[in-house]
């Protein structure tokens, strides 16, 4: 059944008021690209919505010496147009894969995180970079690692009244190569069936360090740390990685749904390692 009629939208003057309103039970609204779908389906019925999308302190994107700080309500399009994306190729690759230009103009990275879908493309770079989530709530501020923040599909560590203020994305040491690939039935406007993001530190064609993040194949985005370890010291070539395909598949805990079967997800997640080996040229 459809539920029509929208809850009242309240517009706070500043972040402090937003937090107060959220503590009263208001649901934060930024881009609305996920929230409105849920409201329309009637699976969520907040008493009112708190529009945080135009609070300047939540829109800021600042590039510091060791990190980029992205306000929770900065849109994907704004981030892509900012120096942050240029400095963090993995962020650019992942955000460019989100939906369509219209959705990227509305949707926010903070919202993508709060939605906590294992298929959220924007989450992959956060896991790879070891992002921290800055929260502000009735009891003050705190920060969590992204892996502590996301607890399961749609589940986060947000406490009642807490709002995401910003995300800290530390610059990785050196110059790792970035890879992002999502598998789906079409080339845009698609929720990933499976995805793999990677940062690879290479020397003379050999992997010195690796970070991998798998999307859509478990209740949360997954960092397969055994595979990351096993990659170290190997040449970046499909044949040299072939025996890790199974291991990467084994790091998944997929489900079957309308988009694909669990078996397909498991197989493809592992095989993306071979695509990675072909996509990143060991030289350049």
């Amino acid at each position, binding site marked *: *059944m*459809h539920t*029509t*009629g929208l809850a009242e939208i309240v517009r706070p003057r500043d972040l402090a008021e937003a937090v107060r309103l959220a503590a009263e039970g208001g649901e934060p609204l930024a881009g609305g690209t996920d929230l409105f*779908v849920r409201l329309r389906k009637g699976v969520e019925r907040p008493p009112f919505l708190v529009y945080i999308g135009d609070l300047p302190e939540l829109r800021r994107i600042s590039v510091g010496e060791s990190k980029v700080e992205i306000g929770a309500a900065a849109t994907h399009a704004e981030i892509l147009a900012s120096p942050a994306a240029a400095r963090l190729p993995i962020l650019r690759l992942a955000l460019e894969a989100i939906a*369509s230009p219209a959705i990227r103009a509305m949707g926010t990275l903070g919202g993508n995180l709060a939605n906590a879908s294992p298929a959220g493309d924007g989450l992959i770079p956060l896991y790879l970079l070891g992002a921290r989530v800055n929260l502000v709530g009735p009891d003050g501020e705190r920060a969590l690692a992204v892996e502590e923040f996301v607890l399961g599909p749609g589940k986060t560590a947000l406490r009642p009244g807490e709002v995401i203020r910003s995300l800290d994305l530390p610059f990785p040491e050196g110059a790792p190569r970035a890879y992002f690939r999502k*598998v*789906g*039935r*079409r*080339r*845009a*406007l*698609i*929720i990933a*069936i499976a995805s793999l993001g990677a940062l690879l530190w290479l020397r003379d064609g050999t992997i010195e360090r690796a970070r991998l993040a798998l999307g859509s194949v478990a209740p949360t985005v997954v960092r397969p740390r055994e595979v990351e370890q096993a990659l170290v010291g190997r040449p970046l070539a*499909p044949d040299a990685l072939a025996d890790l395909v199974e291991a990467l598949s084994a790091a998944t805990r997929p489900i079957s749904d*309308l*988009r*694909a*079967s669990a078996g*397909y997800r498991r*197989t*493809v997640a592992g*095989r*993306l390692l*071979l*695509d990675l080996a*072909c996509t990143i040229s060991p030289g350049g």
Partner: protein
Amino acid sequence: MARVKAPVEEAEQVVGKAAPRLDAEAKVRGQARYADDLSFPGMLYGKAIRSDRPHARILRLDLSQVAAHPKVACVVTPKDIPGENVVPIIYRDMPLLANGVVRYVGEPIALLAAETREAAVEAAALAQVAYEDLPAVFDPLEATRPGAPQVAVPAAAEGGNVFNHMVIRKGDVERGFAEADVVVAGEYRVGYQEHAYLEPQGVIAVPEDSGITVYGTLQCPFYVQNAVAAVMGFPLAKVRIVQTATGGGFGGKEDVPSHLAAMAAVLAWKAGRPVKLVLPRDEDIATTSKRHPGLVRYRTGAKRDGTLTAVEVEFYYNAGAYQTLSSAVLWRGLIHAAGPYRIPHVKVDGYSVATNTVPCGAFRGFGSPQVIFAHESQMDELARELGMDPLVLRHKNALRVGDETATGQRLTESVGLPEAIGRARELSHWDELQDEVAAFNAQERFRRRGLGASTVMYGVGMGAKAPLLDKAGAYLKLEADGSVTLAVGTTEMGQGAQTVLAQIAAEGLGVPLASVQVAPVDTSRVPDSGPTVASRTTTVQGMAVLDAAEKLRARIVGAAMEMLGCPKVVPGDGRFHDARDPTRSVSLAEIARWMWAHNWDMAASGWAEARPVDWDAKTGLGNAYFVYAYACHIAEVEVDLLTGETRVTRFWAVHDSGKIVNPETARGQVIGGIAQGIGYALMEELPAEGGRILYPTFTAYHIPTAMDMPDEFVVEFVEASYSGGPFGAKGLGEVPLMASHAAVANAISAATGTRLRAYPATPERVLDLIGRGA
């Protein structure tokens, strides 16, 4: 019978030119008014209360809580229907509201109208229905077995659940296979395809002038008029249908608006107020028509040199619970089952079968894409078996002037297929292309490219199954200032018909296109031109426009001669010149003013009837259509061997639709058809369980985006002129979709080295194919 119009002698000024769409600006500016944009004083919002059972007896229908809802103005059950409880389409088996028994999930049981859209939704949920479930059947083959639950209304079926069984018996198919050196056989399956028009179904019924007016998004105003009159028990003249700007149809707005309009009309009549009934997207996807799922069993025989000797086809379409358009869809599938080839021995058996599922209906291609997937797969399988180039095999067997079709129809003119194949070969640099693809495949480890071709024919117009509908009228009026109003009964739904018809009118009159205005379609003011379907508008409606234009032009020329006092005038630069002294001329505005001042008749009506067709149901032989359009498509597809993902990289499309009236709108039709075919072959899937569409949303049902279009595509026309069409034009609209999916499917098969036998080729299915091919 239509008169044959020779193309005008002088070079055409307007026809053949890429004129911008007349409706483009209003649509781009957001000024076009679609059904849901309209509002009327006192308007209510209608809602159908629908069955949630696939097959059940309604034991009790308690609407007391619905009626008690404070914002509900009116509730309708079958006893409130003033006329007949039927939606008359081809048969009369489908009730407007279920009569004691429901046969599919989503079948309307009762109606309500409320003060707001929200209240209508709320109130509908308050209906209490007690059902006694009946055994149900969802698969067409199971539905034909003895002992299967009876779904079809017996009066509308040939036997059991078989709505219709149609045949072609040409030659002796056993002899044909005995003469063959090679025989290939296969079974092909396709599921639903949803139209996914941008604008969902919607109507507004307004009781007025002692009758009823229905505004709506629709293709066939005269179908709607007929249905509303039957349900209301009104004379046709008391029912007025006005088409609103229509955001896409693709066949989905052929029969469905009749049902919707009749529901809104009954509600509006009982409430005495206007009622808007616009379907939300999920209700639209779940409860309105779709392309028929099909199972096609196919066998083809050929000589060693590739000459086809025999084709045997058996196919089943899942019609859903009621006939709607299925008999016509089946017939087109039957006639198109053997493809555009010269085949001496043909045996085809087509079945449309009732099941407890949502009724399927018209969708671009109308029963042909399912069999085309099969016949074009067979041609490639045969080519592989023979070691022949698939384009050479197609060209060798392609129909030519003088040949007989599968129904024994001798083609006397306008067969551009061999030329289209030749041109597609040239444009794609077919031989070099094979080498390029081979080189790519040799170099890439986890990617494979493949090439696929397809050739199709398309019977233009209604054909011998419904010849009574293949007529059209047109009114042309020269206004006193020289501008021109054109009124026709066929509709613009985004396909560009208005522009093309205005071009034909302008050309016929010898006036600039800018002076022609096309009137809105309103059944009280336009002639019955039959339905806007079957790629017939340019051809049949175009002939009626030309007929009117020629009548009016004779008067314009007569007036100009009187004004100039000369025996002959010639048009040029929007003026009419004295043939002896071209410096003497009058403008159209001056002529119009003169005609008005001299009390001349300034209007003309035109009429056209398609050329006769005939067909014998026993043998399946006859002149099925008055003319055919043809196409050859070539697709290059890249398959990711790791994931099974596919990507159409390059595409070549060559069409013969006779004279192309507007190259730009025609190109748009072809590109749109390629996209829709890519969707059909690769991604569009609507799973159902127990007769229920599981995910009726665009989150789950994927149509191609701009990103899914080929990186490069080439569209070209070979114009094999048809003497029965305006300036030599045939139909085009459906053909691009019909050809494109099969080329894509063949390219996937080529890339994977296996045979795709079911749509859609989702990544998971393709990965499975790769696994089997390795």
